[in-house]
């Protein structure tokens, strides 16, 4: 239906777009989520040229353009590099009701940051450099939220 927009002399048509997608994970990300789902293990991979360990793992190193060949098992612990507390609502997309915390965590054994939720944490006492540990769900589906959040270690 269309509705009149105040006294602007114009009308708006209210509608929505519904689209379904099947996102293909590819070989590398399929392995990443399989390890999380089946064994609660977080894997990165290592660039054969520069030696940087990326998590999530990648098909190729963005810096060297080299094909990644070596998967590396990482710890489920790490150090907080940056964070925020989201205090505003956005419909549909937020994994929990605000306020909730997001952070970039450098997992032990990795060189890049892993962006995830922070939980079981005082939202007003989060600090860069905190040590954190992944909390896995009991029932896992093979996606990023199989890790429920990272909590203070």
């Amino acid at each position, binding site marked *: 239906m269309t509705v009149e927009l105040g006294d602007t002399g114009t009308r708006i048509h209210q509608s929505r*777009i519904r689209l379904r997608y099947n996102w293909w994970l590819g070989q590398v990300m399929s392995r990443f989520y399989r390890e999380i789902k089946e064994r609660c293990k977080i894997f990165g991979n290592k660039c054969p040229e520069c030696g940087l360990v*990326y998590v999530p793992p990648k098909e190729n190193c963005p810096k060297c353009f080299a094909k990644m060949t070596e998967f590396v098992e990482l710890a489920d612990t790490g150090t907080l590099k940056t964070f925020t507390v*989201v*205090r505003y609502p956005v419909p549909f997309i937020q994994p929990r009701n605000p306020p909730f915390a997001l952070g970039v965590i450098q997992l032990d054994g990795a060189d890049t940051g892993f*962006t995830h939720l922070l939980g079981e944490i005082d939202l007003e006492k989060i600090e860069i450099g905190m040590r954190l540990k992944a909390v896995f769900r009991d029932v896992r589906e093979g996606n990023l939220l199989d890790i429920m959040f990272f909590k203070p270690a």
Partner: protein
Amino acid sequence: MEGVAIIGVGQTRYLRVNPNSHDEMAFEVTNKALEDAGLTIEDIDNSVTCTNDFWDGRTISCMTVTDATGSSRVPTTNVEGDGTYGVLMGLMRILSGHHNTTLVVAQSKGSISIPGLITNAIFDPLCERMLGLDAVSSAALQARSYMAKYGITEEQCAKVSVKNHKNAKNNPYAQLPLDITVEEVLRSRMLADPIKLLDASPVSDGACAVILARESVAKTKCEKPVWIRGVGHCSDTYHLGDRDLSDVGALASAAKRAYRMAGIKNPREEIHLAEIYDAFSYMELMWMEGLGFCERGGGGSLVDSGFSEMGGPLPVNPSGGVLSAHPVLVAGLARIAEAVLQLRGEAGDRQVEGAKVALAHGIEGACGQGHCVYVLQK
């Protein structure tokens, strides 16, 4: 190489809600730019549009503005991204030697959708998208990273917002001219720490058009051509975690290319004003560093010193910047339009006296993944 000039600009006033449709806005600015250039649509032989399917809510959204921009008559191409990249496309088309004039149009209606839903879709559906990240929360991660690394304070970020909203009072196109204090910025509602409501740009509707011409045309058709002396662009990696969010390497690389092309040795001395993409207050500080106005981490001290104020050595965002109106895709083109008005001496009460060289800057992607920098000269 033949030079390329900007010979016409047109903007809507930027508003939270513009009651006109996207194609009505595109038609308005196309006509304004033509009038400004003293041309008719018959004089345009090439066009570039800037549209995005998610923001427009239509697939192949570029095809929906062909009528409003007169583009069914000429070769037309589309850039799915900021208007600065649209000008880049237009510039390349002219330099191909096959076109005399190029119309570049960008339009955006933030009011038609839920911006957080759309900016969430920037992120990898297999990874960060599931975390609910959007433009604001991802910027908050970057702001925290940058501020922690260099000891930048929330007060220094707030000063950018105070300055730019004040500048907007002299810009009839700006959406948010405001008299605010640092205290008011600090006390405004927290969105995502450390970003508060008044550190963030608004949701906006609007459109902008510019007309480019090859040198021989610009010199005969235009009394006040503004020359594109340099352009550079560069992008960082996609995933937030793979980047050093506090770093501005991609911008520094883009700026270096633009400066080299323009023969700029010392940007701090040779550039008279800069219009840069301050989607959030902290970004203006970071981008000043990437543009070489100061050393890395020096953005806070620079704003403290009054360097970027109107009347300072290098006014930044005399228009009020993106903090004062943020039509996505249009915002970078609006930076170019403002720089053109300044170099022509037509910027009214916000005129930077004696401005001969201006910088304009646009970004793409989350946390300024991509940057496009122009050096313009009268």
